[in-house]
């Protein structure tokens, strides 16, 4: 691999990597600010993970419950995140989410309506009021299509099926990114004053996951390699309700909307077991009997929320305990029942894609039969450390929004808070990246040596004869993380995971791919493995560091929350190729906001 004539070069003020909700919203905003903007995505436009989001967008519009407002939403988010959230991100999110939802309507989105013709809102876990703007159970599709079409009409340059592998720097500053076209395998260099990472999550490092092939932690690993701080990477959310049967669909998401619309969890004895798992932390706001729980859907003033809608970490742990106690379903999950709770027409109208998905993939009619469900890796709360207001990372010129960023959701994300997060911080990332780029006098310089080194690394799987199969290495990593760094964690298992990850890193040096560079998934996976092994190691090391249980991070050897750890972020950095992990204090919540947290 010789000179620069072997790849094409583009120059922009801002490049946005990732075209889900956050990336699209960032590109729209950067472009609106007058920055020359490119949107770069690994798949075709409109296929990003956002398209799979089902339940809704959390925003305190107050259309169904006028009592709702940003303060209640902020409180729910902070408590749901077990207070590990960046309070300021959670505040901005709660305050700006309604405007972002209404903006989608201005761009053509059609949400389900209230009787008065306003945007309807549905109940979801951890939210005090029915708060999620939605379209049946395909809200993500509506959101991504609306943003996609708006971006197309604005004439933003889109680079589809184009994967970025390396962030480039001029001294301390970002100067661009380097990657390849999937179709041709040819390299492509983007020179850019600012980069917005909107690459999503890391779930493909686990075996049972809701995540698609794209979710390999690229942005997280690229940011770390470029010197950015990561925080709280131990905080991985296992969604309580993934499909468990048949084996080929294990992990596919079953929306929390099933429970939001009246569905309930049952064990093999037919018992609604969630009443046995109400922790003291949520006792004051949770119904302790079936009558009150069922009445809550219609009357929130006089009843407390059903424990079926406790935050996801609580529900996932409860399901795990039921299965371990021998009260699981035939295929190792528990039952989710909407059939006996709501009439078929209602179910088909509210949950059309769940109806379709179970009928087609599992041969189950959810209007008549129980679903079998169990926890599945869904979301990473941790990620790139960002400034709450600007989404700036610790590397000048590098911004991050959406799942790849950390802090907003603390130790556990509430359902519905992801889509709103994408919109709120996607917009802010685009805005501040454009401002940063516009203020920069001269374009940063791209270091040819850095580019050539990246190109050599990317081509190495073609040039060696190690004989390792990239799919086998990936499969072994998934099994390792699934078995050893999953919902319930203990130190010896995580130490074992680190040894295995080290061995897998060794095998990665011998991964070999066949065929040529044209649309070669084996080669693409070989390149993604670096990211996946990086995030797997960071997650494991961070999980070892946090010697407590909190939110998505449950340690059998430290089963309780520890106030000492509740006051810190676990921070990961890479310096001279070495990872360092340390604890740093959380930003302090201002006194004037504290009383909101105490409201019952």
């Amino acid at each position: 691999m010789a000179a620069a004539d072997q790849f094409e070069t583009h120059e922009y003020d801002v490049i946005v990597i990732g075209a889900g909700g956050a990336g699209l919203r960032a590109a729209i905003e950067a472009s609106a600010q007058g920055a020359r903007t490119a949107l770069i995505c690994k798949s075709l436009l409109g296929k990003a993970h956002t398209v799979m989001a089902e339940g809704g967008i959390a925003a305190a519009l107050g259309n169904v419950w006028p009592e709702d407002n940003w303060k209640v939403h902020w409180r729910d988010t902070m408590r749901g995140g077990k207070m590990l959230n960046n309070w300021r991100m959670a505040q901005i999110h709660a305050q700006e989410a309604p405007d972002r939802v209404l903006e989608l309507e201005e761009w053509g989105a059609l949400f389900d309506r209230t009787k008065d013709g306003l945007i309807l809102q549905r109940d979801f876990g951890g939210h005090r009021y029915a708060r999620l703007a939605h379209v049946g159970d395909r809200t993500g599709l509506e959101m991504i299509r609306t943003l996609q079409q708006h971006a197309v009409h604005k004439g933003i340059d889109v680079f589809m099926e184009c994967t970025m592998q390396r962030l480039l720097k001029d001294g301390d500053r970002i100067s661009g990114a380097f990657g390849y076209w999937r179709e041709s395998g040819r390299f492509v260099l983007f020179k850019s004053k600012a980069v917005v990472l909107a690459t999503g999550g890391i779930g493909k490092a686990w075996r049972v996951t809701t995540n698609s092939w794209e979710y390999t932690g690229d942005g997280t690993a690229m940011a770390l390699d470029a010197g950015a701080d990561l925080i709280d990477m131990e905080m991985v959310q296992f969604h309580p309700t993934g499909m468990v049967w048949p084996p080929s669909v294990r992990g596919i998401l079953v929306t929390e909307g099933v429970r939001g619309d009246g569905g309930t969890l049952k064990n093999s004895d037919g018992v609604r077991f969630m009443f046995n798992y109400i922790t003291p932390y949520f006792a004051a706001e949770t119904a302790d009997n079936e009558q009150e729980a069922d009445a809550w859907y219609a009357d929130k003033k006089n009843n407390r929320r059903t424990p079926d809608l406790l935050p996801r970490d609580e529900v996932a742990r409860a399901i795990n305990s039921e299965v371990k106690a021998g009260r699981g379903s035939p295929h190792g999950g528990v039952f989710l029942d909407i059939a006996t709770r709501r009439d078929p027409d209602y179910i088909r109208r509210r949950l059309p894609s769940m109806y379709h998905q179970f009928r087609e993939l599992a041969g189950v009619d959810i209007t008549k039969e129980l679903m079998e469900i169990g926890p599945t890796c869904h979301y990473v709360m941790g990620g790139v450390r960002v400034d709450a207001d600007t989404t700036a990372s610790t590397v000048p010129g590098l911004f991050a929004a959406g799942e790849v960023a950390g802090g907003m959701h603390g130790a556990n994300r509430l359902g519905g808070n992801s889509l709103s997060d994408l919109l709120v911080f996607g917009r802010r990332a685009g805005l501040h990246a454009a401002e940063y780029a516009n203020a920069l006098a001269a374009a940063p310089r791209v270091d040819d040596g850095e580019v050539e080194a990246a190109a050599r690394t990317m081509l190495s799987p073609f040039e060696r004869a190690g004989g390792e199969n990239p799919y086998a290495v990936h499969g072994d990593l998934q099994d390792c993380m699934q078995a050893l760094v999953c919902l319930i964690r203990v130190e010896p298992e995580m130490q074992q995971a680190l040894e295995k990850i080290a061995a897998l890193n060794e095998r990665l040096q011998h991964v070999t791919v066949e065929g040529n560079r044209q649309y070669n998934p084996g080669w693409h996976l070989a390149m993604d493995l670096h990211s996946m092994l990086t995030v797997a190691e960071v997650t494991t090391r961070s999980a070892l560091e946090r010697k407590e249980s909190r939110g998505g991070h449950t340690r059998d050897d430290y089963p309780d929350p520890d106030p000492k750890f509740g006051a810190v972020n676990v921070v990961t950095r890479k310096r001279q190729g070495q990872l360092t992990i340390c604890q740093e204090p959380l930003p302090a919540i201002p006194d004037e906001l504290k009383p909101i947290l105490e409201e019952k």
Partner: protein
Amino acid sequence: MTAGSEFTMRVWRGDASGGAFQDFRMDVGEGMVVLDVIHRIQAEAAHDLAVRWNCKAGKCGSCSAEVNGKPRLMCMTRMDIFEPGETITIAPVKTFPLIKDLVTNVSFNYEKAKEVPAFKPKAKEADGTRRMYQEEVDRVQEFHKCIECFLCQDVCHVIRDHPENKPAFAGPRLFVRYAALEMHPLDTNDRLGLLKQRAGLGYCNITKCCTEVCPEGIHITDNAIIPLKERVVTEFNDPVVWLLRTVTGRKRKTADGAGS
């Protein structure tokens, strides 16, 4: 079908320069879909087998292919609809140029999308809200279910058998999008002239092939294309409309925001 059945998967391998079907004998377990088997081939036998996929749950529309000649999503095609021992042919969609194996160049659809005049909402209500009622959004929500798998485009004989029509024909997917905008309760933009001319609505002779393959069950022909055709006819050929326009001196509203 019982677990552990064996099938022959006859998969297209090749690129624009040519290719051939290649057979793979594969064990198939309970509940597996065609995409699972393709992934197994990738992992075990042909690491460079090109295929698109994302959600594996019928929501993203990436894994379109022709399975035994029928346009389908591979993630939603269960192996147990086939007889054990059967040979299953997996070919790329025919209407779009081949890139490699099961991956085709679908940029046609993205280019056509750029030509659709943007959504242009009317003024807000006096109280600053947008009021729409479920009854009026229902029919548009049907169109918004489209996952852009482009199977309707693949099966549409206007372009499947006559690629020369592509420059002057947007195809069923885009007609669904035009219909969604035209019937949007808030939209004020006009796309009928474009539909008649550049989008080539008149080419469609309502054979309903598109409707039959839609994995979302959108009634493309009945609910999108036919009503659009009626609107175009009313707008351009209705003598009453013509007379009114002549008498009142009012011109057709013109589309704006087309392309960009």
